[in-house]
């Protein structure tokens, strides 16, 4: 069995992504987007478009598709296109041209004339700081402003006044987009009152539900299929504009419709990561003990205020054993594209600020940055009585320092020819969570086993994990498991979000396997069956009775059963009232900066992670490397460019030539190491999430390494050449 089950299909081109589905009579849709940031569409001239070759239909707010509002308990409201004439950001879907071919739809879409009543647009996060509104992150169960004070301390200010050393700084992080390789897209097939939508997403059930709401259909009338997903990272949880449009147009036209955003449109017509401004004040004793920690955050969001990037709540709330703590979250609604979850939402930009500030404190104290972190190791989130279930962060740092040669670091860095070399570290943490999940397990008479759930494997390795955990739970070889995912017709579970899929689906498999084994034993010992009346046990894929054994396939064949199915379920339970759960890691980065031209390039990286039990070392390593590369990207390359004088709120670099992500040459060999302590207090499998933690802390480690190399402290990301020219 390959280390990643889907790899052979992907590298040979056999993997069929959503857009690879083609049907007879299929039409092609092209999305038209707004070119202003704020205003109302007064009119749309579609005469030329309608008479262009091959055009079937042009939909707009003036000739809308039947699409209703969508709201779900977990994700709140999901924006549905063409429902009104209001424009709230540049690049918002405002029309949909359907034609016989993709090229015809695209060319005709260019002929649409739009006139707007333009209104003043707010596009600057900095300008909006004064009018920001306090708002608690939707998925965090705490108020937007929160203070934990030691007994006898009356305010956080008093705690700072009592601190021997205080550092205070403001950090900024850029807005980003997930930029999955596969753009948001869909193929919709409407047939006999039922809709099937092929679309890459993070779990088939949510879009199926959302599509049924938008189209006013029974949930059972919509099926969403996504066996392969070309990257998601939080940006494909909710249903995308092309999926809504293709589905509604397919119903109207009675033909299958395929639609995809262009690469440029992905930057605006989806949702990305907020830009943030964060002020951090740290007060400590001379020995490094934290007395007070204050972390105030502001984030950009769309004008509806739909998402709060939890930079304070996601990091400072829990990371250190500070005696006093004050955090806040505020939002600045802007006429910019929507924001949403993006790999380590909160933790990624939040850790840049917090872990840079810790480095500044270490410097102010003249203390080794690792030692400072060790002295403030938390046993539980401050003010909470729930200790970490299993925390080995100190060990991560110890092993990391050794492997990385941290002892060779000198406070002023070193020179290697024309290159200034520095090292930096940072803590990484990401909460361990589970979502409710069900997985169907079917023992087949031919000796194979189906393990099936609706969730997705957007490159995370879930498909392989289903095989491995299924094999272990049923005590058979992994190549006898046939895992299936990505279909809303399968049991709901394994949604690829919050780094939860392995822990959630894995424990559901264990539960399902126990159930199906129980049923198999009952069947085997039932009257007329091969083990009738015997004491039976299960091991090694076989039923064992008194003096004889049979494989489960033989039992099924002997009893005339094609298969035996059980659906195992799991959900977070009472463990949440007993402990706090998180994955931990130590990030090490070495950076080289050219002494003249000041390019900063990462030359070595190491991450040591405490993520509970590792189910598949190769896919786990792959996830963490990918996350660490994201961290380098955030630190040195990535970010929306929205000019200060840009009244139209236009993302100036909305393509892959202008929106920089690292190329291979920017990424050195990456060392990933695990300390493996199964966390069975969290779940029976003992595995915690790994999908997001890899990116946490890396940007700070890069900035800290640059400071070590050059003496220059850069408090914003991405860090670019002009920041280092001093």
């Amino acid at each position, binding site marked *: 069995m390959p280390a990643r089950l889907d790899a052979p299909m992907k590298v040979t081109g056999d993997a069929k992504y959503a857009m690879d589905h083609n049907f007879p009579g299929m039409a092609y849709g092209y999305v038209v987007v707004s070119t202003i940031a704020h205003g109302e569409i007064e009119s749309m001239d579609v005469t030329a478009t309608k008479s262009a070759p091959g055009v079937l239909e042009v939909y707009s707010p003036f000739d809308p598709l039947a699409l209703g509002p969508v709201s779900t308990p977990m994700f709140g409201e999901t924006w549905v296109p063409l429902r009104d004439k209001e424009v709230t950001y540049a690049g918002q879907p405002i029309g949909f041209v359907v034609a016989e071919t993709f090229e015809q739809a695209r*060319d005709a879409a260019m002929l649409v004339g739009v006139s707007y009543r333009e209104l003043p647009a707010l596009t600057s996060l900095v300008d909006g700081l004064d009018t920001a509104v306090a708002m608690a992150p939707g998925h965090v169960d705490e108020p937007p402003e929160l203070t934990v004070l030691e007994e006898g301390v009356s305010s956080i200010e008093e705690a700072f006044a009592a601190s021997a050393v205080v550092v205070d700084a403001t950090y900024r992080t850029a807005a980003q987009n997930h930029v999955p390789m596969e753009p948001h897209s869909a193929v919709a097939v409407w047939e006999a009152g039922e809709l099937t939508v092929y679309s890459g997403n993070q779990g088939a059930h949510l879009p199926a539900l959302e599509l049924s709401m938008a189209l006013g259909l029974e949930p059972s009338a919509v099926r969403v299929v996504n066996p392969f997903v070309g990257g998601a990272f939080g940006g494909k949880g909710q249903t995308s504009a092309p999926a809504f449009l293709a589905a509604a147009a397919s119903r109207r036209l009675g033909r299958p419709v395929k639609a995809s955003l262009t690469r440029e449109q992905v930057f605006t017509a989806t949702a990305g990561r907020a830009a943030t401004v964060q002020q951090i004040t740290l007060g400590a004793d001379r020995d490094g003990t934290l007395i007070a920690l204050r972390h105030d955050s502001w984030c950009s969001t769309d004008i509806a205020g739909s998402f709060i990037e939890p930079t304070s709540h996601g990091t400072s709330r829990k990371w250190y054993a500070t005696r006093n703590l004050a955090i806040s979250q505020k939002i600045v609604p802007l006429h910019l594209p929507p924001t949403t979850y993006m790999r380590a939402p909160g933790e990624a930009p939040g850790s840049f600020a917090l872990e840079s500030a810790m480095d500044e404190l270490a410097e102010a104290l003249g203390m080794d940055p690792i030692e400072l972190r060790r002295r403030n190791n938390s046993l539980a989130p401050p003010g909470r009585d729930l200790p970490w279930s299993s925390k080995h962060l100190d060990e991560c740092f110890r092993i990391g320092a050794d492997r990385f040669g941290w002892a060779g670091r000198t406070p002023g860095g070193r020179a290697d020819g024309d290159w200034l070399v520095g090292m930096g570290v940072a803590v990484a943490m990401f909460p361990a969570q589970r979502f409710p999940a069900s997985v169907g397990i079917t023992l087949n008479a031919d000796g194979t086993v189906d393990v099936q759930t609706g969730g997705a494997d957007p490159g995370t390795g879930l498909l392989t994990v289903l095989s491995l955990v299924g094999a272990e739970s049923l005590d058979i070889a992994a190549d006898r498991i046939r895992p299936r995912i990505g279909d809303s017709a399968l049991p709901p579970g394994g949604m690829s979000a919050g780094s939860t899929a392995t822990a959630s689906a894995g424990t559901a498999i264990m539960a399902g396997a126990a159930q199906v084994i129980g049923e198999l034993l009952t069947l085997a010992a039932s009257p007329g069956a091969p083990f009738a009346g015997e004491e039976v046990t299960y091991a090694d894929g076989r039923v064992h009775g008194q003096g004889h054994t049979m494989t489960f396939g033989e039992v099924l064949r002997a009893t005339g059963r094609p298969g035996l199915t059980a659906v195992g379920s799991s959900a977070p339970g009472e463990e949440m009232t007993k402990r706090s759960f998180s994955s931990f890691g130590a990030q090490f980065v070495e950076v080289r900066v050219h002494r003249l*031209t*000041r390019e900063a390039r990462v030359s070595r990286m190491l991450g040591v992670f405490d993520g509970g039990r590792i189910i598949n070392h190769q896919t786990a390593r792959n996830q963490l490397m990918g996350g660490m590369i994201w961290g380098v990207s955030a630190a040195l390359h990535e970010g929306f460019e929205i000019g200060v*004088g840009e009244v139209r709120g236009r993302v100036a670099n909305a393509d892959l*030539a*202008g929106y*920089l992500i690292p190329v291979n040459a*920017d990424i050195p060999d990456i060392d990933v190491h695990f300390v493996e302590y199964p966390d069975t207090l969290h779940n029976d499998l003992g595995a915690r999430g790994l999908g997001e933690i890899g990116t946490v802390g890396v940007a700070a480690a890069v900035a800290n390494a640059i400071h070590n190399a050059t003496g220059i402290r850069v408090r914003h990301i991405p860090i670019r050449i002009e920041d280092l020219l001093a």
Partner: protein
Amino acid sequence: MRPFELAAPATVGEATGSTGTFLAGGTTLVDLMKLNVVTPHRVLDINGLPLHGIDTGDGLRIGALERMADIAAHPGVYPVISRALLLSASQQLRNMASIGGNLMQRTRCTYFRDVSMPCNRREPGSGCPATTGTNRMHAVFGTSGSCVATHASDVAVALAALDAEVRLAGPDGERTVRLTDFYRTPAGSPEIEHDLRQGELITEIVVPRLDWAGRSTYVKVRDRQSYEFALCSAAVAMDVRDGIVADVRVAAGGVATVPWRLPSVEAALRGRPATEESFAVAAALATDGAKPLADNAFKLSLLPRTIVRALLEVTERSR
């Protein structure tokens, strides 16, 4: 993209005699057609024309249709040229893109590429949002109130340093123009980018013989290690004798509306010791007359550093 007619002329005469937009590798043209930035009614595929060959006998002659990758790999090509090519775009693009098309590539200015925005270069008289908008990548030399876009070609900078010429064929015959005269700074008409007349075609690039051009290099500073345009670049060739600069050529990229030759820096280097101190003194002259914008003033600091780095690299190699 708008529907267009495609023709494939078989001879240079046929190509220059017909109206249409030339298509070589298509890596600029097709890209801009997809964005509706250029909307030709007729496209002339010139890939069948006999504009090939790399001749290193006396100086260097390169057929306009030679691919960037092939020129870069040719052992007889001066290092400054092959390095400028190798540091351009990506291997895939270099396999497709021709040197003629490279010299004719359009600016990467983000407003130029977005038809929903004004742009004097694309639509004369519509305005230049870059002067007040996002202009980190933009030029500090050769700019005007009507346009501040950089010329994006790397190899053009190397060629400008080496006094290269372009041979042109047109309805009225052939002529040869020095590359530095070929390009036009925007002044009041940024839509006029070069001295190419109606129907004219670049047939060949000619680099005069320069015996010491083997000691040359191209340093390109950018936001990632590969596959990105220059924030600032320097093409340098230098003849050092007994530790003294006997002769030198310096041109800069990423900073100007056209490939930017730096005669004042060259003059200040000639006859001086080949040391970092004297390089720094000369390179400081490079920024004379620069007009920085809101986001790109750092190029005034970066340019001299880039030139010094390139000069040091050549010195190192000449030892």
